[in-house]
């Protein structure tokens, strides 16, 4: 009697059960894995078709995420700001921010694209073309590349001389319609429009003209030295559309 009751609650009359939990779990995990592997191509496809990325798909997806290598932001006042330009140049100079502002300015609206995937469309940039600064100091024979240093004493960057002469590679002192804020690398930062954001070094303190490409901080940590927005990593601009 007792065992009959027990049997009734289990089998054979017990309803057939399906491992839905395992299926949903595996399904979600597979969805996540597919997202990791294929998201970039899907997003690239749509940015090609629609002309804009899918950053706005998630609320707040098109905002800046503020990174810092040191966990701190160097605060440099306008008055104390200096940009030291040295190396293979005829006239090594140290510029104040007023010096930079006195140079012919250039401004344009372009997206900030981070290598990790986020993107901020329609950012207003204003500054002086790097090529103008190089013309001012006079690049010597044998110069090949530039190295950049930051007031954070950690980040470094590099560009070839050719890359540095692209028209939308600028030393920026205004961004988003205002002086560059500390979190965005102010008072003066680099902006390399045709490349991923890590090339646009923040808190720019020094430029050195050198005879060989020296990979910067992020490049030592695995990012390509030539971080073109289309994903190619050759030294020359693969697509004039990028600039």
């Amino acid at each position, binding site marked *: 009697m007792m065992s009959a009751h027990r049997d009734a609650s289990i089998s054979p009359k017990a309803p057939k059960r399906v491992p839905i939990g395992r299926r949903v779990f595996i399904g979600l995990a597979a969805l996540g894995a597919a*997202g990791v592997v294929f998201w970039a191509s899907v*997003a690239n496809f749509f940015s090609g078709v629609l002309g804009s990325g899918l950053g706005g798909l998630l609320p707040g997806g098109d905002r800046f995420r503020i990174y810092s290598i040191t966990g701190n932001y160097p605060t440099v006042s306008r008055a104390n700001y200096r940009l030291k330009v040295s190396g293979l140049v005829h006239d090594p100079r140290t510029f104040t921010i007023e010096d930079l502002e006195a140079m012919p300015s250039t401004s344009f609206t372009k997206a900030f694209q981070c290598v990790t995937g986020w993107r901020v469309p329609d950012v207003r940039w204003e500054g002086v073309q790097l090529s103008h600064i190089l013309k001012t100091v006079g690049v010597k024979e044998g110069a090949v590349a530039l190295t950049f240093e930051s007031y954070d004493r950690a980040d470094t960057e590099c560009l070839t001389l050719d890359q540095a002469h692209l028209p939308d590679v600028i030393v920026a002192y205004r961004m988003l319609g205002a002086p560059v804020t500390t979190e965005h690398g102010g008072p003066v930062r680099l902006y390399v429009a045709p490349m991923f954001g890590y090339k646009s070094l923040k808190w720019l303190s020094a430029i050195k003209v050198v005879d060989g490409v020296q990979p910067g901080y992020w490049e030592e940590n695995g990012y390509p030295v030539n971080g073109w927005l289309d994903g190619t990593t050759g030294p020359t601009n693969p697509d004039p559309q990028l600039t």
Partner: protein
Amino acid sequence: MSLAPTMPSEALRMLRFDRVQRSAHWSNALLFGVLMATAIPLYFGSFFGVVLARHVVAEIHLWTGLALPIPIIISLLGSWGVQMRRDVRRINLWTREEMRWMKTLGETPLVADKFNPGQKLNSIFTAASIVIMLATGSMLQWFRFFPVPWRQGATFVHDAFAFAIFLVVIGHIVMALTHRDSLRSIFTGWVSEGWAARHAGAWLKEEQAKAGRTE
């Protein structure tokens, strides 16, 4: 001795969550809470103007995230994990009635198990999201080992699941606050037989049968 189910009583109580499950739930809730609280300024960084504290916030988010699977794993192990493992099995296995109930969003009749299909789905989603967030979060932290497109994908998946988690957790809390007897059971462990008769009839029957067997 009769084996017929006795009339469910409000005075008799049943253990819905043992101490191990309650500890695991609240440890997990605490970790989720810290992760969600730190996620907001990290995601909306420039919006909130969080400047110098960002590094600290990121560090808390990272270590809390790495700790995330620990309470559940511990609660499933060894002799104290018996009840937890039994409930995992329950959450995994669904009857046809449960599947139909879920598809019709509760419109079809169902004598519910210890957890109804919505509650089961909540647990399954939470478990999957822990694995996904841990995996994609690790890719973002140790990015240099992964190709650039995968990092972009990991960023998106981490963000998209974060939004889903916020919705599910808010829904979970709203359900808890509007179902006080269920809420009490995750603090004390106990529900009344009357509650079980109303919300978890299949479980009540099962427990009564078990009690009959051991008497």
